[in-house]
């Protein structure tokens, strides 16, 4: 299962954090810093999108200046989560109309709503782009 999801910029500022387990505030701070150190220092061209992290693995992908990182179990399917990241980015892109870092900052509370339609309880819930987007549009129109 997914343990947590981060979206971080190159300076290590976390733009989205979603935790699927219980962690103390202190642990959270530590993990965010560690993930950034681990991922940002890797060679984007010649290295895989997977890296060992404590007893788990991080699957990550970089889009412009943002790192999208999923922390998963060692027996999970890495490529499936790598593509889940891509699907998530595509959804965000369509939802915000060419998403950028600032969209995530200013609409942080909406990003959680997007995530809730796609991933729940650390597992993938919905994988159809059109189903997710039409649902989000519908929810947006509610008062």
């Amino acid at each position: 299962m997914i343990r947590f999801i981060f979206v971080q910029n190159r300076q290590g500022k976390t733009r989205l954090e979603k935790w699927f387990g219980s962690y103390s505030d202190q642990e959270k701070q530590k993990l965010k810093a560690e993930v950034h150190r681990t991922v940002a220092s890797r060679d984007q061209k010649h290295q895989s999108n997977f890296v060992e992290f404590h007893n788990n693995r991080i699957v990550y992908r970089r889009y412009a200046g943002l790192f999208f990182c999923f922390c998963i179990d060692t027996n999970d399917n890495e490529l499936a989560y790598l593509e889940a990241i891509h699907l998530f980015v595509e959804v965000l892109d369509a939802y915000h109309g060419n998403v950028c870092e600032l969209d995530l900052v200013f609409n942080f509370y909406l990003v959680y709503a997007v995530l809730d339609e796609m991933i729940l309880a650390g597992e993938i819930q919905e994988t159809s782009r059109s189903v997710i987007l039409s649902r989000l549009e519908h929810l947006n129109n509610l008062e």
Partner: protein
Amino acid sequence: MKGLTVFIADLRKCRSHEDEEKRVNKELANIRTKFKEPSINGYNRKKYVCKLLYMSLLGYDVNFGHREAVELVDSTKYSEKQVGYLAVSLLMDDESEYLRSVVRALRRDIHDGSEWIVCLALNAISNIGSREMAEVLTSDIVVQLLSPAASMFIKKKAALCLLRLLRRFPEAVKAHQWVGRIAPYLGHRDIGVTQSVASLMTALAQQYPEETRKAASFAMRRLKSLVIDNEYTLDYVYYKVPAPWLQIKLLRLLQYYPAPESSEARATLLSILRHIIDLSQDVPRELQQMNAQYSILFEAINLGIHLDIDQGLMQECAVLLGRFITSRETNVRYLGLETMAHLAAYIDRLDSIKAYQGVIVQSLRDRDISVRRRALDLLYSMCDVGSAKAIVSELLRHMAMADVALREEMALKVAILTEKFATEYGWYVDVMMRLVSLAGDHMGDEVWHRIVQVILGNEELQVYACKISLQTLKAPVCHESAFKVSAYVLGEFGHLIANAADSAPIDQLKALQSKMTSTSQSARAVALTTVGKFINLFPEIKTLCLRVLDRYRGALDAELQQRACEYYALGTLEGEELLPTVFEEMPPFPERQSALMSRLLKREADTEDQRTWVYGGREMNRERRGVTSGAASNDSREAVAESSAMPVPATGLNDASSGSPAASKKGAQEASPAEPPTDPLVAKSMRNYARLLWENDGILFDGEEIQVGIVAQYKPPSGRLGVFLGNRATAPLYNISITARVADGSQLTIQPAAGQEAEQPETLMPLAQARMFFDIQCQQVFTAAPTLHIGYTVAGCAPTVSELQLPVTVGHFMDPVTISVADFFARWKQLGDSGIAESQHVLPSAFLTKDAVGLEWLRSVIGGMGFALIHGADPEPNNIVGVGIATTQAGRFGCLVRVEPKPTHGLTRVTIRATNVEVAQSIGGNVKMVFESR
């Protein structure tokens, strides 16, 4: 929300952290005043709570606004409710006082008329998932999942909600009540619903393999319709690949079930796998499509390996993997190596993998550390007697160049492989000495401890080990860990080589001394003990030894000083008896699982869904699966697995049955310790009694005339016990009396609760019920159980008095305590060392078949007894460990439990360690009784 946007923009404009902090504090003050205004409207409340959330995400401590969040949750507007639930999930922890109101709101929202409100509630439960929610809301969620009226969105969310609660509080969701109704949803036409249900099913499959058996055929059929019959809607096609995530989930789910028996089902599975493999023959250009296709392919290979039903397919997989590990795509190389390690864990002959040994060794030098790790795992998994020497020497060669982060693991693996596959003693010693010299800085003490254990346990090794140790000490440079091993070995066995050239006692002492000054405190401490042992081994150099010790008697380090002083005193003592007794040769270490191994396994065990295989080759996987006969081919290895499968307990204080598992098994068959009752009525009441040892409510006695039920509530050291007396006869019962008694001198009081005595009815009509509450106080640990006396008269008969043993033991006054894994083992050891307060039973447990139901039951028993289960603490995943504190008025007693089920042996070992021996024995006795009455 304009105010929010402005606020965020303001914060972004701040030049320094101080500026930002100032702005935040100003806003916090502002929000506090706004929240006090009675006229604040919903929109503003939402806006301010959002601002608080933003600050909290920036890392500022926000400790108010919880009440406002709950108010938003109660709003009728969707957007306000949404922010309310978000705030609850981000700001509140499990202990929050407001969580109760949230549960109340959820209870309301989950049955709301609008679908999106139900969805919001389900999202919130998945995100928060507290214990109370599991207890109160599970049945509502199940209803939503199964209701034909619920929308697809509700169903998806309900399934994942259940999954979250099931994973966190397995005992609270009572999954056995609904587990059988989930599988058909794998055939649901909506792919989103199937996707979510498949995740839930995967978790259920591990806990209820029997009840969920149908799921395998549902999953297979659904997979076939996707892969072969092309039944899917276009919106689920991802870069030309139909529903890749669902395909993967289903392929994964099938790996939790054995290969099907029917040849028809096997053929279907094979055709699915073949189809997937054929599809992947042409590699698409587009990255997304390639990844999606490969992700399915790798999962299909994993399933193929797991099913192991077609040799041709396996060979083909091996060839495919061989191609992948040389791929130009790093991701593919990585996954190729990983999957090949899975293959090595299953196949009989490793030849098809060994063909790639050169490539794999090359991968130890890959540009990506992640790939290097997988190469190491694979080499470790594919190693066997034939290839051990080559692989170990390759690993040693790479050790010096390997990343620091990888060196420790490499060292562990080399140590394990060398021990496992050593056929020559010399080789073992040489490799290990090289290993500690090369990687000493990067490995834990376990490695050198293990070397010493192995040498102590193998007489044939000892002379050679001494020679090498002396050489090591004489070499110009000597690594600290190598020094410790050498010092220890010479101290034990130095006399074995004392007659060889240049190995006289004096040479040994000089070699030791020459390196002693340049090592650390801990190494010097080991060396001092060796010097002490030398006094005993070689009386001829006693004065020299004493001189060395004398020098350290004034050492600044307390440990060194103490050792030096004590050994010096021993050496100069007049009587000759004490010295040889103290420094007697160490006995061989008891055979038990190597600490190295447990360390590796523990690291791998940290996954939410259980691993279906582990790194380390076929033999280890077989051992792990607990297969001990049948398809077994290699006898000698089998014997090793057998002997280490259930180590003999090192301490056995309590009863004969803890001696050895074999003995207790016999004992159980011939004359069971507790004489299993033959009378069905007695057996039944024993079962009733035993059940109440771990459950608070239940029937205690079920007779022809009366039935007695118990409802208990404990708040250690007190409790309240409700006794329910039902009349099952056809005539009224007269002169009813319900009293409780404790044994003389027992440190327990049971008294009727205030006003209860007056309420007792004199007469009880047929089918009527009388009840009586008692207050219990536990002053001190007690052993004798209290009794319940029920008197009544049936018209025309002499009065009857039934005496029943009450299920009230010191164990009932226990509360669960959660501690960390490290703390647990520290305390476990600490209590074990003291030795007195331990209760151990090896109990026959044939009912614990290999499936998870028995284990689940066992977990609820231990949890029900008041222990907090510490998940993942024990390297063996089936083992259960827990902690509780028993509270009496006179004091509190910590209590630890470890349950080690061995389904294959039909035995379970239960060990209780407590800070009080009577507590340990009482609880141990309770567990035993629960087992025997099952």
